[in-house]
Every structure is written in structure tokens, then in C-alpha cells.
């Protein structure tokens, strides 16, 4: 199953950008290999958006959510793409993002929570193998009061690859009652190397913010547990890494995309 097939089968509907107010949203929209695209989410319907990079482009994506709009965005990098995604959220809007890098690439998310009550949730995964270099930049900007943000970024670096996460939560002076969490969880395999730098920059005093980063190896206890049930050591390791990755993939709200990603990840891990 590949993305072209999902489009040909009518599971995903191609979209070229612009306003969503007159777009048929009964099926998820897909944007394939964008260079520069602006999307206006100005509809009362739930929006499901998929962006897929299969070519090593430079891409600039602008997404703006009008008041009260709910968007889920899945972005998948299958090539050495350099992308910047700028998201602006108006009052009471909600944006849930699943971002997956299965190839050395560089993705920057800049999320502006620009009006009261906006909510953002991003779950990202990068899987760096061979001598690839994966970079995920995330800056979540709480510009006004009473906005919520959640970020979970998981990384795997295997072989001689490098995986890099740079995160910033910015809380403006007026952004009281901000609720922000940013977590980075990483696994290093072989000579893989992780750089994880979550940061907070807070100028308001009535806020709830937390951040953290861990870098570890596979859990020996879990390997022992699985082998005690009869799995080989290799299978136990592979399953644990798959599980670590699928925790992000499973948050995607489109079953066919989940399946596509799980298969792509499993194939990549077979090579380790």
C-alpha cells in the first residue's frame, strides 16, 4: 500500500490549497509534495489533512485555523525534505498533529496560539537509520492567555545516524493561565546519536509548563519478558522499537495511514 494507491482508491482526496470552506471534507485531504501552499481552515466541519513528502523538496506550508475550527494534520516525510510548517490558531480552535519522519529530513513547526482557548497537540516521530540526519524543530508560541499545548516527540537513531530535536515553548507576558507540556523520548541503537534540546521561555507568571527529555537504550526487562514468552532476542528488540514508534503512529485518525506507516516502519526496522 502506498500513498498513490490511497489516492487512486479514493481514500484520500487530493487538495491544492486555499480555503476549505467550499471543499468536500467527507474524505481526508492529501497534499502530495507541496512546494509552497497556504491552507485556510475556515469551516465548521472537522478537517482531516495529510501532507506527504516523497521527493527531496523545500516546502513551506501555511495553515491557519479560524475560530472554533478542528483540524487533524498528519505529515509524513519519506524523502530528504526541508519543510517549514507554520500554523496559526484562532480562538477555541484545535489542531492535532502527527508528524512522522522515516528518512533523513529537516522539519520545522512554528505554532502560534494567537487567540484565547486555542489547543494544540503534536506527536512526532523520527526514525534515523544508516548515516541519516533527522531534525525536528518545534516552537510553540503561547501568545495570549488560556491556551493549551501538548508535545510528545519520539526519536530513534540507529546505525551511525543522528536524530535531533530542538523544542521551544514560548509564553508571552500576557499569556496567563497557559498550560504547556513538551516531552522528548529517544532511543539510541548501535552508534546512533540523539541530540534533544527542549527549552522553555516564559514571561508570564500564572502558568503550568513542563518539559523533559530522555535518551535511553532498549529496556532489558522488556526484552527478557518477551523472550520468556518464546520470542527470539531479535524479534523482541524489533517489537519493542516498533511499539515505541507505533505509540505515535496510533494517534493518527486515519486507519489506512496508520497501516501504511506501521508497515513502512516495520520494513525499515527489518534492515537494522
Amino acid at each position, binding site marked *: 500500500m502506498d500513498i498513490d494507491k490511497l489516492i487512486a482508491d479514493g481514500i484520500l482526496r487530493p487538495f491544492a490549497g486555499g480555503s476549505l470552506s467550499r471543499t468536500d471534507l467527507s474524505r481526508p485531504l492529501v497534499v502530495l509534495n507541496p512546494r509552497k501552499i497556504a491552507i485556510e481552515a475556515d469551516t465548521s466541519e472537522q478537517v482531516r489533512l495529510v501532507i506527504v513528502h516523497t521527493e527531496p523538496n523545500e516546502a513551506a506550508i501555511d495553515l491557519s485555523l479560524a475560530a472554533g475550527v478542528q483540524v487533524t494534520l498528519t505529515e509524513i516525510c519519506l524523502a530528504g525534505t526541508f519543510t517549514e510548517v507554520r500554523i496559526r490558531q484562532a480562538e477555541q480552535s484545535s489542531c492535532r498533529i502527527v508528524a512522522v519522519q522515516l528518512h533523513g529530513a529537516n522539519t520545522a513547526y512554528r505554532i502560534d496560539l494567537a487567540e484565547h482557548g486555542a489547543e494544540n497537540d503534536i506527536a512526532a516521530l523520527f526514525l534515523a537509520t544508516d548515516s541519516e540526519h533527522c531534525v525536528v524543530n518545534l516552537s510553540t508560541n503561547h501568545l495570549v492567555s488560556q491556551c493549551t499545548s501538548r508535545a510528545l516527540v519520539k526519536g530513534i537513531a540507529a546505525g551511525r545516524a543522528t536524530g535531533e530535536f530542538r523544542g521551544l515553548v514560548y509564553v508571552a507576558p500576557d499569556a496567563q493561565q497557559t498550560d504547556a507540556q513538551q516531552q522528548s523520548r529517544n532511543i539510541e541503537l548501535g552508534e546512533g546519536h540523539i541530540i534533544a534540546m527542549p527549552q522553555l521561555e516564559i514571561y508570564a507568571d500564572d502558568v503550568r509548563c513542563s518539559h523533559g527529555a530522555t535518551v535511553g537504550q532498549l*529496556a532489558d*526487562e*522488556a526484552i*527478557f*519478558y*518477551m*523472550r*520468556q*514468552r*518464546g*520470542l*527470539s*532476542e531479535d*524479534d523482541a528488540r524489533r*517489537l*519493542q522499537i*516498533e*511499539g*515505541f*514508534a*507505533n*505509540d505515535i503512529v*496510533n494517534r493518527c485518525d486515519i486507519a489506512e495511514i496508520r497501516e501504511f506507516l506501521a508497515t513502512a516502519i516495520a520494513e525499515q526496522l527489518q534492515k537494522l
Partner: protein
Amino acid sequence: MDNNMLLSVKNLHASVGDKEILRGINLEVKAGEVHAIMGPNGSGKSTLASVLAGSDKFTVTSGEVAYKGENLLAMPIEERARRGLFLGFQYPVEIPGVSMANFMKLAVNEKRTFEGKEPIGASEFLRMMREKSAIVELDAKLTSRAVNEGFSGGEKKKNEIFQMAMLEPSLAILDETDSGLDIDALRIVATGVTKLHRPDNATVVITHYQRLLDYIVPDVVHVLYHGRIIYSGDKSLALKLEKEGYDWLINEYKD
């Protein structure tokens, strides 16, 4: 060799670092038997279970273990499992992102492949999951969740016995399967273990409490103290230990 002999442990010594924890264990378990191993904290009960399962946290320094007549200590962890040795963990491990169903399917098929059987079919597997989860009243929804993740203490222990039911081991070693269970969960777990008991398999339960043995009636009760089995008796021993504690035995048999 006695054909009914499943496990024969002779003078087993094991250490972690330079600290000796098992100091000469002798134990024989035959098909159809239930053994209970009791003893104060730190006496080596969990270590014995881990060493038999093949944990590399411990080094076996001397002794022999025969399982179904073969040298258990030479087998990798997964081979012991595929040959029918099951360890019920005191602290079942959470494996995020790995579904119970997927995990169990792999485990069941490893065993079947080892036995020269075809992999299990999808519908037969689902039927088996339903049937076996009913034995321990495990909510069927839990089998679609990640392994042990977000399970309550009781659900984790039920899940161990569910896995035991799926894998139909010849020898199950249950390490404090009763700890942290309320009285209802204890009854369900213990009744589940009893239902799985057959003339051709055996169970070793490691426990602190006599109450588990009200349900799982042991043929032999062993007291492990300071790395050795210092006393073995019938089921009445557990009752006596419950009432009188271990001191009388320790005072008599300590070295």
C-alpha cells in the same frame, strides 16, 4: 530417568556480582505436582525463578538443572520458553505500543513452530484468545491494548495467567502472583491456575501467604531461607508457617 520428572535442580548456586544468593538448591518437580516455595523476604525465591527462566542478571556458579532430562542451563531464554517453561512475573513488564494480541500471536506461533506445527489461523487464534481470557475473567478489551500498559495491579496478574493459559506450559513458575491482589482478584487468579492444572504439567508457586494455597493446594511446601531449601513438608506446613512464622525453622536449620 523418571519419565515423570520435569525439573531436577541439584546443588544450584547463583550470584549477582560477587554476592551469592542461591547457595545449593535441591528441588525435584514431577508432572502432575504443585509445589509451593515460601520463605522470608530476601531468601532467594525470586532469584531461583529468574535463574530457571534464564535471566542474565544472575550467574550460575555451580550445580545442575535438568528440564525434561535436558540441560536447562545451556538453553537460551526463548528456548526454555518454547520447551514449555513459563515464568509468571512478580512485576509484569509494560511494553508500550505492542498489542497483547500481536504479542501473544508471535509467542504462540514460536512455540508451534518449535513443535513442528503450522502457525495458528486468525479465527482459531481469536477463539483461543476469547476462551483463555475467560479463564481469568480478563476483560477482552485489554487484549487489544498494549502489553500491561495502563493495566491495574490485578489486571497485570490476571494477564500473566491468561498468557500461561495461551501457552499451555509444562512447567509454570509463578513468582508472587498473589502479591498486591485483593481477595476477589486472588480468587480469580488462583482458580484460573487450578483450572490449568493437568496430570502432565506442574506448577511451582512462590508466595508469602498461605491464603493462595487455600485455592492452589500444594503437594509439597518448601521453605527457602538464605539461598537454601531448609525444610519441605506437606500442605499443613504452610498453615503452621502462617501461624508461627519462620523463626522456629530458621533457628533449627540455620547454618
